[in-house]
């Protein structure tokens, strides 16, 4: 190739045929750069790999790896096919609401499965209404804010996600807690709070008793937008650390991945 004749259209065909072909590119150096710069009005860069067995290892080893993929176009269509051949969708697009009745959670124990999903998908949100005892035994309790939602993912024996009522209030700016503690040992009062994007406690019915560590309550209502993914199954349980039975009513929103098994 002549350096004196740059004004040409470069056409370069590389065609290798054979029963066994190996092309090895081995670049070694303190600094190696191999830029591929393709510019044109229309660009086609097909990569077509077909074979009975294909092994395409991309192995990036470095103290720091950055992969930037920038796709700019008026219309972008990216499909990612998983090894099972199932396209990846977002489970949140497919909500199926399911409602439980009132479930009694025994004192100092974990409930049974309040929601037991088999399959692949995403638990989107949990709305709940927790109250003390039954209508005949509606005494205020100091441990209501310590009640805990437990989410078990893919058959795990330990919960992957746990959140107490007080933590859920913290997730929403600790609004209920702030109102209740600031009010002191006043008369029973209802507190409400606007929910943030991740949920929180929307309503608490406070009793009179109050300390710096907490307050008694008879009702706690809230919403937890948990967005927990699972591939084989998910279980939600409720832990009641109190010394009396509590009742809880829940609504779950979940979505499954269509075509997935």
């Amino acid at each position, binding site marked *: 190739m002549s350096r004196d004749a740059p004004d040409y259209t470069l056409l370069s065909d590389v065609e290798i045929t054979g029963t066994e072909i190996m092309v090895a590119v081995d670049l070694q150096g303190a600094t190696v750069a191999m830029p591929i710069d393709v510019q044109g009005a229309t660009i086609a860069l097909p990569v077509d790999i077909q074979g009975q067995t294909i092994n395409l290892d991309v192995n990036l080893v470095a103290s720091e790896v950055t992969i930037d993929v920038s796709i700019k176009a008026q219309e972008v269509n990216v499909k990612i096919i998983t090894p099972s051949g199932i396209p990846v969708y977002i489970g949140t697009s497919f909500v*199926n609401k*399911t*409602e*439980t*009745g009132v*479930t009694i959670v025994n004192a100092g124990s974990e409930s*049974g*499965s*309040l*929601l*037991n*999903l*088999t*399959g*692949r*998908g995403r638990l989107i949100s949990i709305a709940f209404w927790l109250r003390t005892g039954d209508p005949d035994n509606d005494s205020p309790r100091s441990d209501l804010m310590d009640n805990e939602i437990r989410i078990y993912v893919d058959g795990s024996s330990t919960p992957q996600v746990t959140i107490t009522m007080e933590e859920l209030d913290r997730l929403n700016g600790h609004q209920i807690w702030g109102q209740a503690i600031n009010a002191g040992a006043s008369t029973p009062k209802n507190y409400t709070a606007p929910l943030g994007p991740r949920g929180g406690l929307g309503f608490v019915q406070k009793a009179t008793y109050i300390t710096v560590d907490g307050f008694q309550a008879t009702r706690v209502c809230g919403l937890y937008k948990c967005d927990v993914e699972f591939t*084989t*199954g998910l279980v939600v349980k409720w832990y009641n650390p109190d010394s009396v039975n509590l009742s809880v009513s829940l609504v*779950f929103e*979940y979505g*499954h*991945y*269509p*075509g*997935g*098994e």
Partner: protein
Amino acid sequence: MAKAVMIAETPIKTIIHLDNGGKIEFTDPREAIEYVKKLEPSDVSIRWLRSKGIEWGENI
């Protein structure tokens, strides 16, 4: 025949989600088991039946 893609259980009902987009709800868990047994087997239904102590092919 449809296959189960997700099965949701709560204390008051069992919901079978099918690959054709449909879903069927049962309040009696025994009826849900009988229904899943008659579906085309899928990974979800086999795993769910196994959680109930039923191996696919047994008593079906």
